[in-house]
């Protein structure tokens, strides 16, 4: 998804204005000219300035579609692959704690391998191996408390 300069400018204009307006609500430090609001206000104004430059550029370009689909999105399965990848991360965020790192990681790897048409045998092998190695390195060597969930602790 590619935004034209005008479209990008519009988004920035609204974002910058929203930031500047929000910054007005931040409390000032008594007796000081510059407080918590100073920087966000500056950032908001600078974004508006960038938006104006982008508008000028867009105006020079003439009529261009506001949003164009990039080349890769036309390939079959490309959008699906991105959606599934994002869904896998979301699934990890919600499922890792109740279910545990090992099963969720295995499932994510299997789904993604199959999506990239890795053969079943290889997919299962690498999903198991990568999950166990990651679990060993991070939980046992680096002492990262990966969630157990329903899984018993592995023997390391």
């Amino acid at each position, binding site marked *: 998804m590619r935004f034209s300069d005008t479209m990008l400018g519009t988004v920035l204009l609204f974002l910058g204005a929203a930031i500047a307006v929000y910054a007005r609500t931040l409390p000032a430090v008594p007796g000081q000219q510059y407080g918590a609001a100073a920087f966000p206000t500056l950032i908001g104004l600078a974004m508006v300035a*960038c938006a104006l430059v982008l508008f000028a550029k867009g105006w020079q370009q003439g009529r261009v579609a506001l949003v164009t689909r990039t080349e890769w999105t036309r390939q079959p*399965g490309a959008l699906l692959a991105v959606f599934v990848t994002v869904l896998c991360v979301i699934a990890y*965020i919600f499922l890792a704690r109740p279910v545990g790192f090992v099963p969720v990681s295995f499932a994510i790897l299997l789904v993604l*391998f199959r999506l*990239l048409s890795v053969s079943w045998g*290889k997919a299962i092998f690498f999903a198991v191996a*990568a999950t166990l190695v990651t679990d060993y390195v991070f939980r046992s060597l680096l002492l990262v408390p990966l969630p157990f969930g329903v899984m018993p602790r592995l023997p390391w």
Partner: protein
Amino acid sequence: MDAILQAFGLVFTWQVLTTVTAAALFGLLVGAVPGLTATMATALLVPLTFFMDPIPAVGAMVTCAAMAIFAGDIPGALLRMPGTPASAAYTNEAYAMTRKGEAETALGACVLFSAIGGLFGTIVLIFAAPALAEFALNFSSQEYFWMAMLGLTCATFIGAASPVKGMVSLLIGLLVATVGLKNASGVPRFTFGSTDLMAGIDFIPAMIGLFAVSEVMRTMAAGAPSWDNVQVRVGNIFRDWGGMLTRYWRQQIRGNVTGTAIGILPGAGADVAAYVSYAVSRRFSRTPEKYGTGHVEGIVEATSSNNASLSSAWVPALVFGIPGDTITAIVIGVLYVKGLNPGPTLFLFNPQTIYAVFLIFILANLLMIPLGWMVIKLARGLLRTPRSILMPIILVFCIVGAFASNNAAYGIVIMLVFGLLGFFMEENDIPIAPCILGIVIGPILEHNFITTMIKSDGSLLTFVNRPIAAVLAVALALIWVSVIYTTFRGRRAGST
């Protein structure tokens, strides 16, 4: 002299040498995994150092950090994923070289100039430490403000085909940096009632997202084709070392000096040094148009710089107990635990310990060449693995790495959001590097601006009425003028 001999005795024992080698390998492996930073490697070593004597403990941290900063270049060159933020400045450049089939030249330059840069920083640390630290101590919030401005200005030069889009990226980064409670007045900003956001947006997951997750998404979208046009073999990395040394001696020395100077400044570390040096190199290059297309010149300067800054960051740390970067901040804690309280007295009462630390610095940078060569040889395996196998595994690594930064799922949320942001930015040719720099330098800039304003009661003149600040301000103004001049001239040349 007696102290130096004693220092040799302290360092050349089996215990110290084994510890240093083990720490070196650990640093190389952690640094080579995208998303795991040199700071993280150092932090992970801390629990282990509790069981060690002072010299091996400090030696392990020195070696580990130096190796991790170098090793960050390896995945940067081979996979376009910087292993540590310090490699981010020239990741695109190194990857472009790999695509051109020059991976060995890129990695060879990284090993060689990392080692030389580290040695240069060490020499400065040894000889000029007290005087230079004293100079940096003269800095007040005004000077830090200008340094931060300098860093941000340089950020707009890095890989910015369009200055406006570079600016947009920078503003996104600055905006991200304002989230949370960490501002001079302690007001929660952009937290929208979330407790997690109060602590601000953690840098490590954000970087994993921007660099790694967005790359995984892109590869997944393309169906993970095998590495076409990318050379699978990394040949002889020692090739052309003599040539690079003679051709780029100016860049190398400039990188060493810049890196050392930035390292000495409290708060500015290897990543800022690399960004500044890369931008400086591009500015002064005879062939700036080659930058970004796989040209080794900028890599030479930036990789010298980040390792030089790593060593020189120890100057204020050892002499005054002020950390030069995040790594030395961790190390200072260990020094106290080991009874080596940093400060001028350390040089008076325990000179042999200080000399021993210096020796380990030299040793670590010499070890970098054989061990670095070994790890580069091993890293070839990464490219032999098909991407359809590698990418899902990298995604799991990213998830675990983002989780490990805070041991909370919040890190993974940040990673995902920034992954999508990075994906969108890349689609629209908005460079990512200025955003990263905005996140790192934004808080320094704001803090010093507000502090200065509080001190001066709102008078902006105070930013230029101190000598060092005035010099920095003039330098910055000159850079801006030269940028505007070149843009204007470029546009006129383009229109005629």
